[in-house]
């Protein structure tokens, strides 16, 4: 079966099985004991009252069964409680590992994450795949292995009395343990596949449209969308209904087999244990009554098997993720800390995105000395942001080199964040308190330092006015704050991070010119002495830069100090005029 094949190549679940093996075995053992005690209780009770009905001369004769009855009666709930705790704990530990692994897998590709994954997809992965794997264990693996061990025990036990009857029971039980589960698995594979596909589609589609909700409202097409969505939903409901119907019919048939088992057992015991008012006949009730508690152990197996179809896909998807996502392999050799003034050297840099025809950057050379303030200008799409990724070493040059004091930056990852900070276009605020958000940059920062940083970016007043101050919770994606405020908070983070080189990747786009100018001045004051690489398409504040370079279509077009350009360069003059407005 495919699930077993998948499991063989799996790199998501198997490694963790070894990690927590002892509690795994314990959980399985406890599961076995639960059902053993349940069956033994009825077996023993059946014998007890039959024996008692045979009117023994002395009550001591039934003393042992009486004690055993109580022991099994207490044993069952105790084992069951312990089993559930052990198995849940085991599974949740596995879940933590899986989440961690999912995060780490995606982290390799963090900077380009958004263009590769739709947030809805990841949500789907999270809540479906990992939860499914949780259930795979709780609902399928544990019960199945427990039932199998019971099966072996029962067959050996009955075989000891009579080998041919053992063989008959082996076959009858096999119907419940193997035939029905296999049938469920095969008969429903296609339907379940369809159910899964529909569900994933619904997730992706709903997330997309919830994000674009204002357009639906304005276009007054919400009814239309809701109708379409509910139609899809209904399609899913129909598939689910078919599955449910199948399950109910199958469950009925499983019960029929149990009925048959009871009758066969009754027949066999009446031959095997003949007697009159007692004697061997005391065992009849024991054997027949013991069958009922076993229904609980065996009946759910088919449903459990059927569900593996769902898990199979999750397992596959997670495993594929590992293969496609592995970006740069982590560097094994540690690079010694860079010392002294840091110079960024760009030499004949070419970069071409995979599967594109054109070079995003071509033949670019630049030297950025320590403490220099460089502006990189160009329209969107000209390759400025690509250059920023290359400077920080998030991309590896196709040809040429970007080196920090002679070490290629792409080899410096992740240590690069000690040298280069980035304030980028869409800084993210996490759904936690403001102070937590700021402390991401510097975990040791005191409240005083946080307030300082806020003051430097001009947010002190605003935060002080918030009801909970620094402890204010930031809403999803920081929507409580305006675009400008979000950028300023991110700048405060950069200030706290305290790195020698800062790349400003169009950070001030959403600020109004006055604040922008003030902020640029702040940046210049606060980051004085540090290397600034300012990627922009606005002209605001360029006068503060030492050097301006223009990039167009991936090539360096012009460069010079802002003063030189304003006097000699026509294009620059024209842009200045537009920027002035009226």
């Amino acid at each position, binding site marked *: 079966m495919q699930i077993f094949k998948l499991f063989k190549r799996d790199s998501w679940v198997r490694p963790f099985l070894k990690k927590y093996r002892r509690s795994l075995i314990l959980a399985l053992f406890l599961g076995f004991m639960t059902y053993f005690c349940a069956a033994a209780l009825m077996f023993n009770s*059946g014998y007890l009252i*039959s024996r008692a009905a045979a*009117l*023994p001369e002395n009550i001591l004769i039934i003393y042992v069964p009486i004690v055993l*009855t109580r022991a099994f*009666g207490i044993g*069952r709930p105790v084992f069951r*409680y312990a089993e*559930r705790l052990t198995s849940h704990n085991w599974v*949740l530990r596995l879940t*933590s590992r899986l989440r*961690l692994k999912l*995060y780490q897998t995606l*982290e390799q590709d963090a900077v380009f*994450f*958004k263009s590769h*994954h739709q*947030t*809805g997809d990841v949500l789907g992965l999270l809540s479906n795949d990992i939860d499914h794997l949780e259930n795979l264990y709780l609902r399928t693996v544990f019960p199945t292995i427990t039932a199998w061990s019971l099966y072996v025990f029962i067959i050996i036990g009955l075989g000891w009395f009579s080998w041919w009857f053992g063989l008959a029971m082996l076959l009858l039980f096999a119907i419940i343990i193997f035939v029905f589960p296999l049938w469920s698995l095969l008969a429903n594979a296609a339907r379940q596949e369809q159910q899964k596909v529909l569900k994933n589609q619904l997730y992706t*589609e*709903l*997330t*997309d449209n919830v994000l674009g909700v*204002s*357009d639906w*409202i*304005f276009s007054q097409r*919400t009814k239309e969308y*809701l109708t379409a969505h*509910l139609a899809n939903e209904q399609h899913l409901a129909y598939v689910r209904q078919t599955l*449910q119907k199948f399950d*109910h*019919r199958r469950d009925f048939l499983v*019960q029929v087999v149990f*009925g048959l088992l*009871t009758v066969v057992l009754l*027949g066999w015991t*009446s031959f095997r244990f*003949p007697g*009159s008012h*007692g004697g061997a006949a005391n065992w*009849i009730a024991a054997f*027949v009554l013991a069958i009922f*508690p076993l229904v609980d152990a065996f009946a759910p197996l088919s449903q459990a098997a059927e569900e593996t179809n769902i898990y199979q896909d999750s397992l596959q998807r997670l495993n594929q993720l590992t293969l496609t996502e592995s970006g740069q392999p982590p560097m094994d050799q540690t690079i010694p800390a860079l010392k002294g003034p840091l110079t960024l050297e760009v030499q004949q840099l070419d970069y071409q995105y995979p599967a594109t025809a054109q070079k995003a950057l071509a033949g670019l050379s630049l030297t950025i000395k320590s403490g220099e303030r460089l502006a990189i200008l160009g*329209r*969107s799409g000209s390759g400025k942001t690509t250059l920023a990724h290359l400077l920080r070493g*998030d991309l590896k040059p196709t040809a040429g080199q970007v080196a920090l004091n002679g070490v290629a930056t792409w080899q410096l990852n992740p240590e*690069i*964040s000690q040298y280069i900070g980035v304030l980028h276009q869409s800084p993210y605020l996490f759904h936690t308190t403001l102070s937590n958000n700021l402390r991401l940059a510097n975990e040791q920062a005191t409240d005083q330092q946080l307030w300082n940083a806020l003051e430097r970016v001009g947010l002190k007043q605003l935060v002080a006015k918030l009801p909970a101050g620094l402890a204010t919770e930031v809403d999803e994606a920081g929507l409580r704050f305006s675009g400008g405020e979000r950028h300023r908070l*991110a700048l405060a983070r950069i200030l706290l*991070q305290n790195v020698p080189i800062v790349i400003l990747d169009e950070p001030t786009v*959403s600020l109004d*010119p*006055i604040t922008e100018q003030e902020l640029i001045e702040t940046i210049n004051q606060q980051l004085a002495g540090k290397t600034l690489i300012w990627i922009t*398409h*606005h002209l605001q504040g360029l006068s503060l830069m030492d050097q301006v370079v223009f990039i167009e279509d991936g090539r360096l077009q012009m460069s010079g100090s802002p003063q030189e350009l304003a006097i000699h360069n026509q294009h620059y003059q024209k*842009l200045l005029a*537009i*920027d002035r*407005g009226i």
Partner: protein
Amino acid sequence: MIDKKLLTFPRIRLVLVLLLGLAGLQAASILGQACFLAKAITDLWAGQALSEQWQWIGFFVLCYLLRHLILWRKEDLLDSYSRQQAQRLRQELLSKVFEQGPSLIQGQGTGNVTTMALEGIDQVEKYLRLILAKSTTMMVVPWLILAVIWYLDWRSGVFLLIIYPLIVIFMIVLGYAAQAKADRQYHTYQLLSNHFVDSLRGIDTLKYLGLSQRYARSIFKTSERFRRATMSTLKVAILSTFALDFFTTLSIAVVAVLLGIRLVDGTILLFPALTILTLSPDYFLPIRDFSNDYHATLDGKNALTAINQILAVKTTEITKVSLPAWNDQSQLTISQLDFAYPQQSKSLQQLNFQAIGFQKIGIIGLSGSGKSTLINLLGGFLKPQSAQIKIAGQELASFAQPDWQRQLIYIPQNPYIFRASLRDNIAFYQPQATTAQVEQAVKVVGLERLVAQLPAGLDTQIGEGARALSGGQAQRIALARAFLDQSRKILLFDEPTAHLDIETEVELKERMLPLMTDHLVFFATHRLHWMQEMDWILVIDQGKIVEQGTLAQLQQQHGAFVQLSRSLRSV
């Protein structure tokens, strides 16, 4: 036993009556099954031949089959009922979400909303199915069984009756403890769900801060915290199951022992004793089933509460006012408009202004001055605390009017691009537009180069996760939407070019201006050069209109506008 919230569900009473009837039948078949089996075993024990027992065995099999047939029928009934109810709830939830719009979604989190609409409602469906089945069985089956046991042997009957309230008391006490814990766990679960997605969303920021690798520990720690929270809930939640399990199994053991002792005395015979022993697990089965699924139903119950909370968000009843289509004579007067965000100091105070015909109104101010808030009010996403709004002679309380919104096109700083084809994105407001019309829109807004680059032209999938577009391109798509729908005569722009480079801005401006003619335009920006194109300018500072007039007037007055533009230009 059954949540009061459920009793408000349509047709619930009919379903309950049906289920109770089926439970009665089920009890009868359980009784028959036990009696006939006990009879056969007793006779065999007494030394009779198997061949004489066929009739009893036959009756046993009949009862047994009947019992499971009833179960089958019941499941089908429950499935279809809970499915219908889930569909109804989902429809209500999504209608609410799409009616309330961004404010609701922002508060709940996109992940939460989608999870609630899909997983949450599935959990409610399951909850409904379980709770109805289990509670109706519990109301009927044990009592009929007890009656028969009482008839066979009143002493066992008394014992079983007394033990039952004990079990229930334990269950309730422990159930409350579990409930309190589960409520907390639900919150943790939401936090965790958001925490993980939140971390994935901000993963690039984490990387830039050099934290992304270390942050993995936080993911793990949060998850482990979740595990501990779940385990401590489970310890309590299944403690009630344990107590129940313990009492029921021990009761069966006690019944067996008592019967055994009295059999030795000869005060009872094997047949009633065996029947009682066979029936006692079935006596406890319903309550065990009920509690087994108890913590599974908690999820559904919690989800239902969360969904009800959203459904309870008040829709301020809008008295719909029918408004004529905006034309060159129409008039809009806003006076004494006040607005404040809940729990925030930002607000708009005492706005007064007028718009006539196809005026172009510039709204200029620094960021945070209240420009966007004003645009959101005009779009009807926010409702003023108080205002006198008059459109074409009609008084309105807010702009959340279908007849008003129908005439609007809203172009924000970052227009949302759906994960759909370029064509569908462009034709979003006019889905029935022809290819020729879409192509013309493409030409008007200058998207030809993009269309030529895309592998499947207009039919290429764009949007998040598909093909990412630049800010300028997204803006052009929004403009194309506006161009396609010429029936919408009111354009709301919220800083549409603030994040674009100057060169793109200039190009876009050339495309935008022709689209603005014959439209009422509200244009919020801080870019001065747009003011040359405006017929009327509102200067906003700290939530107030500090000055308004034509550009020429404002330049003459040497007031707030001149000050603003001077400071904008001084840099």
